[in-house]
């Protein structure tokens, strides 16, 4: 009998029409880092929500130290020493770091808050584990990395010994990821146990002891990391071989498709400019990547190019046409396709059916309407064609409500829509965010196929692997300015990281753009 601190035995959790967890068993040893790997929709989050008391399983039981326990709400989980860092942080923006950490377990004497005690404990914890935070800073003013450290301190403050990390590295720079991995190792030395939800194989290989793989709600198996390989894990996760090395011909960049000159975009949240006098060209047959840490002006830059937001200064030329004053519809007609950053906010009308979303950029074309009436039949057959061509999976085919589809398939629908219309420039903003290996592979292939079809691709990405793997040219954006132009073949992730954090910049490059 091994020493398991938490056992989830034969867990079955069912939602109307779908079994999210089908007889899953997960056993966590004391002091180990146990990775939970699976594609989106594989049931990872559901399983963790069952453990954290957000859902109750229909079948199966949870044991702690060999004894059966009931977890009916997060409070129960907390009492059992289970803590969770959610993918989207649950912090009160206008509270200080300290206030957020003690929220819910405020130390008090007769109802009067004892902040001093709390502060001592927090400072002690942060020193012990190397989790640097500023206790009195407001959450809205600190970096995402520090916000994550606050979330971790929240768990430690509650003396949790089982720590769940839900996709913790999605928002971090390479340097921060290394730091987090070290902190996690430090926890296990203290005897704490970690459940680490991720779909990044590199991280699992570097930090985890064991890994349980889920696929379509079923447990595929639990493996020792030292006995396995990245390839094997991905095969278990996706159910087939995944090609990590993208086959890519060298780019043959041709004519300039999009030319951006002196673009200045005001910020939505402050009085400063989010994008400052940025100029660059995107040419046919190349993937130009804008790399940078989130919040350095990428979103504003793209909004200005695609027409979602107005900009104060600058000129945009698409295929030789001045589109500075064009509205969104006319930019689209002039040959711009846009895979937006937020597929739920901008990319899809979630309450519309899949077919209605597929024609979202084209419903007004004569192919799909006659005198203002939608040609339902043509829409249906067009949707069927794209669903087949791009392998978009959904419950009821073209009439599925988009909201009920998985993230990967929603993204596929957007990509199908944007790449099947006639276009010269494809603007793709974080096209693989939150997607699983299979979907990422598919999207990367599509982007490269688009480049090989002699289209211009402007990619904005926060994922360094993605930047390095698929781009032909990298522009690094820092605080609204382009600080460097790099060749992915001649640079390293570390160098890229230095540019992204503002530690390094090329002054020379900018002058070449100024004409």
């Amino acid at each position, binding site marked *: 009998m091994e020493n398991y601190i938490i056992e989830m035995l034969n867990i079955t959790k*069912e939602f*109307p029409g779908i079994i999210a967890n089908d*007889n899953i068993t997960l056993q966590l040893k004391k002091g180990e880092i146990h990775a939970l790997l699976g594609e989106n929709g594989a049931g990872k989050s559901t399983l963790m929500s069952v453990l954290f008391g957000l859902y109750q399983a229909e079948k199966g039981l949870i044991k702690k130290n060999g004894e059966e326990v009931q977890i009916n709400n997060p409070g129960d989980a907390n009492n059992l020493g289970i803590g969770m860092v959610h993918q989207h942080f649950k912090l009160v923006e206008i509270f200080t770091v300290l206030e957020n950490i003690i929220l819910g377990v405020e130390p008090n004497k007769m109802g009067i808050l004892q902040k001093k005690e709390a502060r001592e404990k927090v400072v002690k914890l942060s020193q012990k584990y190397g989790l640097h935070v500023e206790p009195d800073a407001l959450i809205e003013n600190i970096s995402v990395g520090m916000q994550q450290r606050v979330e971790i301190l929240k768990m430690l403050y509650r003396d949790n010994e089982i720590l769940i990390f839900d996709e913790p590295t999605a928002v971090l720079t390479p340097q921060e990821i290394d730091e987090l991995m070290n902190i996690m190792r430090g926890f296990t030395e203290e005897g704490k146990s970690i459940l680490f939800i991720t779909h990044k194989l590199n991280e699992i290989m570097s930090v985890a002891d064991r890994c349980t793989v889920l696929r379509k709600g079923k447990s595929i198996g639990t493996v020792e990391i030292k006995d396995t390989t990245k390839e094997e894990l991905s095969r278990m996760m996706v159910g087939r071989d995944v090609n990590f090395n993208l086959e890519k011909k060298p780019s043959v960049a041709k004519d300039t498709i999009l030319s951006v000159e002196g673009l200045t975009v005001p910020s939505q949240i402050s009085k400063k400019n989010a994008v400052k006098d940025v100029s660059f060209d995107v040419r046919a047959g190349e993937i130009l990547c804008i790399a940078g840490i989130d919040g350095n002006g990428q979103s504003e830059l793209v909004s200005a190019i695609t027409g979602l937001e107005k900009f104060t200064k600058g000129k945009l030329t698409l295929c030789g046409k001045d589109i500075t004053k064009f509205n969104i519809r006319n930019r689209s007609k002039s040959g711009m396709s846009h895979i937006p950053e937020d597929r739920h*906010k*901008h990319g899809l*009308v979630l309450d*519309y059916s899949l077919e209605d979303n597929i024609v979202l950029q084209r419903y007004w074309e004569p192919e799909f309407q006659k005198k203002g009436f939608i040609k339902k039949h043509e829409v249906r057959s067009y949707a069927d064609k794209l669903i087949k061509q791009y392998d978009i999976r959904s419950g009821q085919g073209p009439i599925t409500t988009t909201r009920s589809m998985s993230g990967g398939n929603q993204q596929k629908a957007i990509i199908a829509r944007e790449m099947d219309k006639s276009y010269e420039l494809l603007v793709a903003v974080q096209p693989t965010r939150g997607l699983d290996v299979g979907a990422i592979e598919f999207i990367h292939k599509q982007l490269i196929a688009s480049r090989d079809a002699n289209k211009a691709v402007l990619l904005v990405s926060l994922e360094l692997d993605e930047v390095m793997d698929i781009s032909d040219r990298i522009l690094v954006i820092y605080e609204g300015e382009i600080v460097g132009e790099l060749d992915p073949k001649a640079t390293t992730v570390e160098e890229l990281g230095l540019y992204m954090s503002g530690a390094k910049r090329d002054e020379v490059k900018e002058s070449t753009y100024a004409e």
Partner: protein
Amino acid sequence: MQNKILSLLDFKKIKKSKGFSSLTAALLAIALGLIFGFIVMLIARPSRAIPGFSKVLFGGFRRIGDVFYFATPILMTGLSVGFAFKMGLFNIGASGQYSMGMFFALYAGFMFDLPDGIHWIVCILAGFLGGMIWGFIPGLFKAISNVNEVITCIMFNYIGMYLVDMWVQSNGTMYVSSQTRTDYLPASAQLPSLGIPNSNVNIGFIIAILIAIVLYIILNKTIFGYELKATGFNKFASKYAGINDKRNTILTMVIAGGLAGLGGAFAILAPVSGIAGGSMTYEPINVIAANGFNGIAVALLGNSSPIGIIFSAIFISHIQRGGTLTALNGFKPEIIDIVIAVIIYFTAFSLLMKTALGNFINSHRRRKNRVEDENIGAPTSDDEVVVANQEVRSEGEEA
């Protein structure tokens, strides 16, 4: 062909459809509202509660013509509110648009001298125009400078009502100051009656239903409807798709205003049975038209769907007629306003109730499964758990 009929009769398919689930939610809300009304009646006058309540339920059937007649204006204002709501706009200004439409119709009725058969049509169109103008202005403000339409609409309810009262009182042709009301309209301006005895029901009701059907087609078959609903569901995505939301906002408010205006026109152009040459009259007493607000209730109960609104308008009119009859049992007709209020309240909770009902059915089903499991024997071995899971899955697929 036979297959088509069969598929229409396929109950499971109907059960799955969105329309069905909003229908069940509305029916549930109605049932709860009526129960609540009954309880209030029991408390107020226990001995007469049962005859009174049966009048609420069935009284309307005795005056079916009146039910349709009174349903007409609230059907129009309901369509107005529901149509705007599809685009995510809350047209609380249906009252003002209704008053405007009524005044324009009155003006055309008294001041234009037109032949029979054309005059009333012109009056209706004038009402449509009046409502459109009153919907256009809040729409314009919303589109140009993003002024919340709720605020402008409420202000325009007052502006519209006072303007109409002022115009009516200052017009010697339409206003009879000795009776503090408008005069009877010339016969050529009155809507043709449908000839149901002892009721005022007229062709307006038929036109209103036709308009509802046209709106249904616009919403579901045209690219304008597609754009409008897309904006209502997700204005960011519709902006991203290049939909001109400013133009659509104005257009939607103009149409919504026009619909409410038609409601006003249908109400005032109705002939009154029993009085030779009599028609409906308007008393300028500085009160905002209640039919505009009733339209909000109608639209909510009808889930903003034009077809649903036809039925909800008739239903609300039905219990209102029944409610006035409860006076025979010594109840105040306001009792019915309570019932309607409770129904609307529960309709707003419909989503919550749908989930609650779903959970109840599911847990019932699960209990049934468990009993079956026990019949087989305790589900200890993995095989049996798998079997049970498969059963659950097949049921899940059906649901």
